[in-house]
């Protein structure tokens, strides 16, 4: 299981997983408001930290307001790949769901729109150094194994631009 750091990264890797296993992969979005009265949140914080963490400790004991979180999870039961993304920012909701829509098109085997392909390229370029370094091996190989078919999928659907985007994406991701 991997927690990815940025929504772009999550989007990118989820797209690759979905490309490899479009039928079994599912995406779950969990919106959670924690129950601050539950024992889990009332444990005394015993962990001693030193150095500059004093400030952080103080923050944890601050006023308790239930702070909701959003966790997105892409899961493929066949290969066991789990990609997660956690956020607590309201500003992320809109674009994450827009991302879900884009991934939904892949699930439905619809061709990517040309503008989306361009956008994804931009995203990948931006996060390429990070993505290359932290990408779990399983995904990389799965994606690599299906490069040919993925392309075929795009072009057969009439999305020439989408196919081109896919190929470019792979190249950058592998760096």
């Amino acid at each position, binding site marked *: 299981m991997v927690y990815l750091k940025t929504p772009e990264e999550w989007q990118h890797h989820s797209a690759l997983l979905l490309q490899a296993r479009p039928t079994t992969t*599912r995406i779950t979005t969990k919106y959670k408001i924690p129950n601050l009265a539950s024992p889990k949140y009332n444990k005394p914080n015993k962990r001693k930290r030193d150095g500059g963490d004093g400030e952080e400790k103080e*923050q944890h004991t601050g006023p308790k307001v*239930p702070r*909701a979180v959003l966790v997105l999870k892409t899961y493929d039961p066949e290969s066991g790949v789990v990609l997660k993304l956690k*956020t607590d920012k*309201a500003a992320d*909701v809109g674009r994450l769901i827009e991302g879900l829509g884009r991934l939904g098109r892949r699930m439905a085997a619809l061709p990517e729109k040309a503008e989306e392909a361009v956008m994804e390229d931009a995203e990948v370029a931006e996060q390429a150094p990070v993505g290359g370094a932290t990408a779990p091996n399983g995904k990389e190989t799965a994606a690599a194994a299906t490069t040919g*078919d993925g392309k075929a999928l795009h072009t057969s659907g009439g999305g020439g631009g989408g196919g081109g985007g896919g190929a470019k994406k792979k190249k950058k991701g592998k760096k």
Partner: protein
Amino acid sequence: MAREHLSNDDFFTQLASLIETTHQRGHGSVYLTQKRLTFGSSAPSSPTGKVPDDPLWDLHPPNPLPLIVRATDGKSHKLDKEGGATAKGGIGRTKNAEKVKLSTVVQPDDIEAFFTRYAEVCKGGMRGLRRRDRSKRKKKDKGKKKGLAESVKT
């Protein structure tokens, strides 16, 4: 799933009220799942049937496939405090008959409209998340998305 799928409209109405009830309770979760619909599809020649010779059978379906979107409150079990707790202090788990389960099928043509509305419902409903706050200095390190651990306080 035993129950009927909802229409997209009913799904959104009920999803909005599900999120709203979660808020009123003050805690709880809403689970939203999306997946390619591979069961009981209307096409007579099942486009999702496995072809034994081709391990990559699902990568190039002849037609676009519908999606299934589900929403639940995640309460498969309920804590049975009345009956179980008195016996040994143990809390029994029983199946929760009131679990909220919603599902809808999104046709390939409707995907865009669906997700536009989906985004609206979620943005409107998920109010517990952190708002953008420009006055905090911490926001300045852009490019780094921060995790949950950090909470902002000056």
